[in-house]
């Protein structure tokens, strides 16, 4: 069963505007927050066990407590550069409830003692940028943003910043570089953004869903929040389900929800006559699961880790038996090759190399040794770079080759897809 906490009112159009939002309890938690000390809110978020919803799953309260107590100006950045292939839950959240994010940011800003926030939105979400700008204006007009919010003495300004389409700007330090006006390239860590981030000032970067969740921790309390999810993966989470299911879409379920149930119940199962072949459980970077693994795993950080994959951004890509895995890997690697920022050598050169190998295989020109080479090159791209883009390209490569090796071997041997029975040219025209 879905557990609609965050997305409870997403079906109502009135929830988009400030009046409708307030009608359903909107902005009530701000007053609640102002009654507390900022540190108490951080402790509450820690106790609730909230983990970053952007992909890495880092404990949010712990991230917040890394801020140095040096009196420096602090920034709160919302990462809305939702670029991980398969992910569209932030889009849904901002389309259906822009004020929910704004309220979450005001509370979080108060908790981390920041007076300036930015929402960094991916460039392709043009309509969302307009929506957010409108909502921010409404919030200013209603006195929820700006100076001395609701007489609390707390000031918080909020702006929207448009990305320009680079996947790498979803990496928090890449995003900071971009926001600073530089080329969107990740920065070396240390220093971490909490110590030295935007404009070299202490900075917190949180995902849209993370920030919105803070409101519900305040509203319902730690106990109620922890009722959902597992011991280590608490609360509910929005999953973007796409691919070969009857009803793709965004679903909010408690963490720890069985993947099988999510596919078969919420999403209405596979199309008639199709068989499940594989699932990418956490966005295109997450190692792929075969059908057997997919149907025994639960959607939480630990369960997915135990089968060698990850929850990532919560983008579930369902693949049925009509799909060619070689073809899918080729498309995936084209993406990472295109998006590598080019800073670190293993990623810059490696993403191009494995993309070329995969492409050669689908063009029917692959060599037998290319299959092992794909895996070897990918393994040597892992854990070698400033950010995780290199790993993000390597992980699908390794898991595709290991779990669907027969399809790769067939392709190399026959010059055509094992699943489609046709060549690349025949399939793609």
């Amino acid at each position, binding site marked *: 069963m879905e557990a609609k906490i965050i997305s409870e009112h997403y079906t109502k159009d009135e929830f988009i505007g400030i009046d409708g939002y307030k009608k359903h309890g909107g902005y009530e938690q701000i007053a609640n927050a102002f009654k507390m000390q900022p540190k108490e809110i951080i402790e509450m978020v820690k106790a609730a066990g909230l983990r970053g919803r952007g992909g890495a799953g880092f404990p949010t309260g712990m991230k917040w407590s890394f801020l140095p107590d040096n009196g420096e100006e602090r920034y709160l950045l919302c990462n809305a550069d939702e670029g991980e292939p398969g992910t569209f839950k932030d889009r849904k959240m901002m389309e259906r409830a822009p004020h929910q994010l704004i309220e979450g940011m005001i509370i979080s800003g108060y908790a981390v003692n920041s007076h300036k926030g930015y929402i960094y939105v991916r460039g392709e979400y043009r309509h969302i940028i307009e929506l957010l700008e409108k909502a921010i204006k409404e919030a200013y007009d209603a006195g929820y943003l700006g100076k001395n919010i609701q007489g609390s003495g707390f000031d918080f300004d909020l702006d929207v910043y448009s990305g320009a389409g680079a996947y790498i700007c979803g990496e928090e330090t890449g995003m900071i570089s971009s926001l600073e006006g530089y080329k969107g390239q990740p920065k070396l860590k240390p220093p971490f953004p909490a110590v030295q981030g935007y404009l070299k000032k202490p900075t917190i970067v949180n995902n849209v869903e993370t920030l919105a969740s803070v409101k519900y921790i305040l509203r319902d309390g730690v106990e109620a929040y922890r009722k959902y999810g597992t011991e280590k993966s608490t609360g509910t989470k929005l999953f973007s389900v796409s691919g070969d299911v009857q009803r793709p879409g965004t679903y909010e379920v408690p963490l720890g929800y069985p993947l099988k149930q999510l596919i078969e119940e919420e999403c209405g199962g596979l199309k008639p006559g199709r068989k499940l072949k594989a699932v990418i459980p956490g966005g295109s970077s997450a190692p792929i699961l075969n059908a057997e693994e997919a149907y025994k795993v639960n959607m939480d950080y630990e369960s997915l880790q135990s089968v060698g994959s990850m929850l990532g951004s919560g983008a579930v890509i369902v693949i049925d038996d009509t799909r060619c895995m070689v073809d899918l890997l080729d498309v995936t690697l084209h993406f990472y090759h295109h998006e590598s920022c080019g800073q670190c050598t293993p990623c*810059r050169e490696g993403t191009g190399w494995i993309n070329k190998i995969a492409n050669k295989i689908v063009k029917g020109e692959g060599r037998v040794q290319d299959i092992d080479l794909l895996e070897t090159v990918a393994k040597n791209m892992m854990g070698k770079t400033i950010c995780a883009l290199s790993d993000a390209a390597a992980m699908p490569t390794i898991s595709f080759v290991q779990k669907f090796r027969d399809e790769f071997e067939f392709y190399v041997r026959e010059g055509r897809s094992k699943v489609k029975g046709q060549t690349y040219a025949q399939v793609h025209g």
Partner: protein
Amino acid sequence: MLKCTVNGKEIEVAEGTMVIEAFKQAGEDIAHYCWHPGLSVAGVCRLCMIEVEGAPRLMIACNTQVTEGMVVSNNSAKVQEAVKWGLDFHLINHPLDCPICDQAGECGLQDQYMKFGQYDPEMAERKVKKRKVVDLGRKIVLDTERCILCSRCVRFTDEVTKTSELGIFNRGDRSEIGTHEDKPLDNDYAVNVVDICPVGALTSKDFRFKQRVWYLDNDSTVCNGCSTGCNVNVYYNEKGYFRVKPEHNKDINDYWMCDKGRNIFKHVNKESRLLKAMKKTEAGTQMMAPGAAAKDVASLVKNYSSEQVAFVFTGQYTNEEYDDAMMYVDKIGTKNVFHWVNNPESFDDFDGILLRGDKNPNTAGLIKALEAKSFNATWEQLEADLNSGKIKLLVLAGPELQEYFPDIQEKIQLFSKAEKLVVLSSNPNPAYRDVDYLIPMKTFVEKKGSFTNFAGTVQKIQKMRLVVSQALSLNEAMQLMAGDELQVGANL
């Protein structure tokens, strides 16, 4: 101080030391392309991989600070494999055109390949094609295919010259170094990017294709282009001098030098030198051996009373030459000793990096030598004495770097008011056509000695193995002119 163990060696390093510096300090090899001690840390080549005891994954030495008791190594199979692959990633799209590359012989990629590589390449795909022979301006040519995108050159123009001409354009394996809107890279320090380029991507127009580097010797000395006194390495072989590169000195020039200093070898080579002494006679110009000419001048000196003889010095000779020269001036007995200050209007200029307006390596040394003998005659006095005819014989210890003496013609006209004018010079000059004696001098690479820079720092210069001309040093010329014989084995 912090204790740490580097590849089993226990060392002590200063607080704040990066692991890569600790490796250097311990004398342990560590591969790196993007790290440069004079620039900020980029951490992008990913070659300086290390294993830190207790850390789960490999780290980069350039961005890891040494902590007390840290045990770090780069000789395990795990690290070696990572470095091997790091090198391979650098090479897969590199053109491997070493036979026609100017960097061959001093290339970071070649060095690493000999250490970690020597295998057959596994890359069977087409290499990425990029721009070749990109003209970056008057001094530098770029080959973007050879470039390994270490970003040293970009950081240099951002951090040292703060001119930011260079950037990395595009992304992924399409990334290329370039200048904004194809504007030239044309600052006074641009050639440093050629030195710090670990591969053959940036080459100097002046040096490229001139010599294979393994046919060159080099010796360190001090740049004589201005009063900063940058430490430099001069590269030469039996065919002549070919290039100058900076040598690290944290107190003087750090890792850099200016582009003007790159030319200080040009006047040294044989084709531009004064090889024989010349004496003006009624029958025309008579060629002589330098020593014979100086002895001739000695007999001239005797013909005049000491107050009729004057000496003009430039700040282009060594402390040792000045000391001896003043001794012989003393012996001759004149107080008519003058300091020719070139470009007085810009003499005190400084560009904030290295370039100083005083275009002499040893003005401070000359002033000290003059003061030691209380020679304090003014330039006005020289002009007056020449105009009045009081000075009959003038000996000019002329500049080695004539380009910094733009008023040479004008000054020679002034000096010619004396009955006899003797010019000591390493190189000919149209202005010297009618002087009575022109005696060849050694250049700064042909003699030992020292220069005192603007801050009073005394630095030694070296006599290199290639001496292109039979010429005299200033002290030898002065000794002969004072009527003494040269000792055999004197400072030649």
